[in-house]
């Protein structure tokens, strides 16, 4: 099999401590097995494990990798993966970002960047096609993400340079600090911003001019024209452009699985104040899309009057709206926008921030923490001012914010009494769907390789549709299928939303892949490679001592029934979870402890 397009077969390796920059060739075997994006990242992180395992030490390796489809003519081709050992969870972590950053990196002629080491002074990386420099710039210190992006554009003197930055939270090593580019596209999860912060790298700026290598452009054009047509004819296409992920608010609340009051309740009585229609009517001023995406999920919102007037942000999407709204008892959309803007510009993950603040409010309510331990803040559900203050305190590590900035694992170490009320798996806070109604969703959170995130599997809608008595084996199959296809999108460098939201046929991705690379892989071949990467990330996590004991959803899922709403009384049974976990392991070829079989392990280490 030979590779005829899709790749430059080159990776940029930057050792910051030695100030050494080199371009390394990628072997065809490596490309054919790991495809790109998350696949490249996971393999390189695995190979590097012996050299560095402490996430915030200079030895840790971070990989930035778009995939071979990124930047090409097909729907939503703008995703880039950031892969490393996460400072939040201490295990394998990755996060992906939309926009145009990855496209630019590919146009500069690289299939990815690998960064190790640390520079003594705050700097940014400047990748200008073949010229790569580390540029010290201490005036960027403490600057918020968007301001830093603007400053670097001005310094370089080109509005079309694409820049990924971290905010003050990343500089302050907040363990769930994210990365931002294109004025509001974020790689939020797993603390990728803290890793670059620990390396004293404030930003990566890229300018590329090269043609992307496409093996059969005519063929790609034919297939994609049809794809764009199919998407635009979908009955929900226009509604999707209008509301994007904000349309999910009503669905989730009506289904009774809205994270409300720190995941205690499953529906919020003011949800109709913070849904997509309120956004459209009063706040939305424009659409924003990632590269080559017709769906334009993102909404640019502006607060035009009242206390938060002047607040402007690209967002929120559903997770942010839910975690900073209902989850904190906030029914004022303008306040959600303010919190969203703060998180984006300070450079912090909105899901984790919402979860930790929710935990603090509940802890105070239950008397698990005293007011003095919380800096005497009058924290309660819907207390907008105190919530916004706490967001800033986390980013700047002030008072209680310093403890929260270390994430839920460390919070539990310090206050073990909070373990039952923090919704997290492997140290990553749960994203915004209550798993108590759907055991497959609990399994998805429990077994996700990065922790409780829906990026790997989002099965809740299907299980709600099929009913609770749906066969456990089929539920496990669905989780595994999701865990195989969803990461494949991250390997290819495209967005999964056309598929999951508008029912776009996944077979098309094999056609794009063939047209672009000339590699004759079917969808099945690609899925096999994605599964290989899933086994690989499992083995990375095993090196950190993870096994079955770490594959459980948050305790609340088994212990506290949903108190109200359409799903009142629902809770999962621990016995049933043990059963589905056994089935899941067996189907994956892992043993009862969740350890991949010797044959699988041999394939990885071969």
């Amino acid at each position, binding site marked *: 099999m030979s590779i005829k397009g899709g790749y430059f077969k080159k990776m940029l390796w930057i050792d910051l401590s030695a100030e050494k920059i080199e371009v390394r060739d990628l072997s065809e075997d490596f490309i054919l097995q790991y495809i790109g994006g998350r696949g490249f990242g996971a393999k390189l992180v695995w190979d590097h494990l012996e050299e560095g395992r402490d996430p915030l030490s200079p030895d840790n390796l971070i990989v930035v990798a778009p995939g071979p489809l990124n*930047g*090409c*003519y097909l729907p939503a081709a703008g995703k880039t993966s950031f892969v490393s050992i996460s400072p939040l969870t201490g295990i394998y972590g990755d996060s992906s970002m939309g926009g*145009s950053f990855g*496209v630019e990196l590919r*146009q500069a002629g690289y299939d990815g960047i690998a960064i190790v080491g640390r520079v003594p002074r705050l700097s940014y990386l400047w990748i200008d*096609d073949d010229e790569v420099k580390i540029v010290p710039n201490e005036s960027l210190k403490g600057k918020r993400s*968007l*301001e830093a*992006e*603007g400053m670097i*554009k001005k310094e370089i003197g080109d*509005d*079309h340079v694409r820049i990924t930055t971290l905010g003050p939270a990343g500089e302050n090593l907040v363990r769930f600090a994210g990365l931002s580019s*294109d*004025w*509001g596209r974020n790689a939020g999860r797993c603390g990728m911003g803290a890793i670059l912060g620990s390396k004293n790298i404030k930003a990566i700026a890229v300018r*590329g*001019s*090269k*043609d*992307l290598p*496409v093996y059969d*452009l005519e063929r*790609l*054009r034919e297939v994609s024209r049809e794809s*764009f047509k199919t998407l*635009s004819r979908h009955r929900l296409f226009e509604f999707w*452009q209008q509301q994007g992920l904000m349309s999910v608010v009503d669905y989730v609340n009506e289904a009774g699985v809205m994270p409300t009051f720190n995941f205690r309740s499953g529906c919020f009585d003011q949800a109709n104040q913070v849904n997509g229609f309120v956004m459209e009517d009063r706040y939305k*001023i*424009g*659409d*924003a*899309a*990632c*590269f*080559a*995406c*017709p*769906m*334009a999920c*993102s909404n*640019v919102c*502006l607060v035009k009057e009242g206390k938060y007037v002047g607040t*402007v942000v*690209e967002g929120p999407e559903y997770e942010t709206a839910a975690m900073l709204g209902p989850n904190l008892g906030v029914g004022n959309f303008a306040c959600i926008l303010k919190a969203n803007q703060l998180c984006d510009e300070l450079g912090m993950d909105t899901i984790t921030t919402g979860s930790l603040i929710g935990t603090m409010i509940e802890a105070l309510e239950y008397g698990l923490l005293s007011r003095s331990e919380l800096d005497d803040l009058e924290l309660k559900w819907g207390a907008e001012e105190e919530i916004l203050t706490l967001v800033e305190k986390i980013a700047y590590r002030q008072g209680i914010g310093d403890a929260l900035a270390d994430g839920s694992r460390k919070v539990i170490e310090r206050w073990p009494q909070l373990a039952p009320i923090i919704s997290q798996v492997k140290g990553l806070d749960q994203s915004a769907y209550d798993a108590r109604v759907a055991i497959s969703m609990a399994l998805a959170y429990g077994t996700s390789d990065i922790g409780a995130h829906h990026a790997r599997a989002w099965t809740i809608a299907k299980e709600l549709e099929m009913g609770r008595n749906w066969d456990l084996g089929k539920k496990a199959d669905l989780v595994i299928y999701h865990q195989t296809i969803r990461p494949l999108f991250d390997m290819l460098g495209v967005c999964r939303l056309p598929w999951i939201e508008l029912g776009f046929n996944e077979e098309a991705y094999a056609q794009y892949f063939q047209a672009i690379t000339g590699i004759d892989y079917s969808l099945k071949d690609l899925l096999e490679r994605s599964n290989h990467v899933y086994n690989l990330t499992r083995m990375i996590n095993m090196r950190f001592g993870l096994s079955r004991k770490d594959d459980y959803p948050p305790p609340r899922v088994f212990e506290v029934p949903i108190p109200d709403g359409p799903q009142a009384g629902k809770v999962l049974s621990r016995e049933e979870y043990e059963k589905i976990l056994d089935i899941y392991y067996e189907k994956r070829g892992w043993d009862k402890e969740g350890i991949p079989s010797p044959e699988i392990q041999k394939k990885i280490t071969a």
Partner: protein
Amino acid sequence: MPKKLTVVPERCSGCRLCELVCSIERFGVNNPKKSCIRVMVVYPHPVIRMPIICRNCREPKCRDACPSDAIVANDGIYDIDQEKCISCQQCVIACPFGAIFLHPDMSYPFKCNLCGGDPECVKACPKKALLYIPEHTLGQAHRMESVLKYAHMREVEYVEKGEKKKLRYADSEGSNNVY
């Protein structure tokens, strides 16, 4: 009937599909940097996005600035004749919209030629932010807006089949006003 390529900036999502299809159609490559249209985003707050397009001016500044008469019209559409172009790039600077482009791989500047009268960018735009319309309809939206903004316009609300509706009318008391 002469047609005009136009933009509705408020609709643009910044997806850059226009750039991409332009590079494929015009130069046969997948490279948004080789396109005759470019999406700009204002910052630091991304409140508006706008594709920069060639207006195909009747009396083009690019043509006037060209010392070698390389900008020539074909069926009313101006393009750069590479035989005559000396690549001094005066046209790039002269265009008031910034709609003539350069690329390190290309020896000459390049500009939109409306794909010979059937622009690919218009067909590819998923937000209908790019339009290719008869020239004489330009300004119609403003003409209608102007009527509706007329100081003596009044509104009456009514309900039809349970749906709230509004009707506008001009108050006859103002009938002697000159607008």
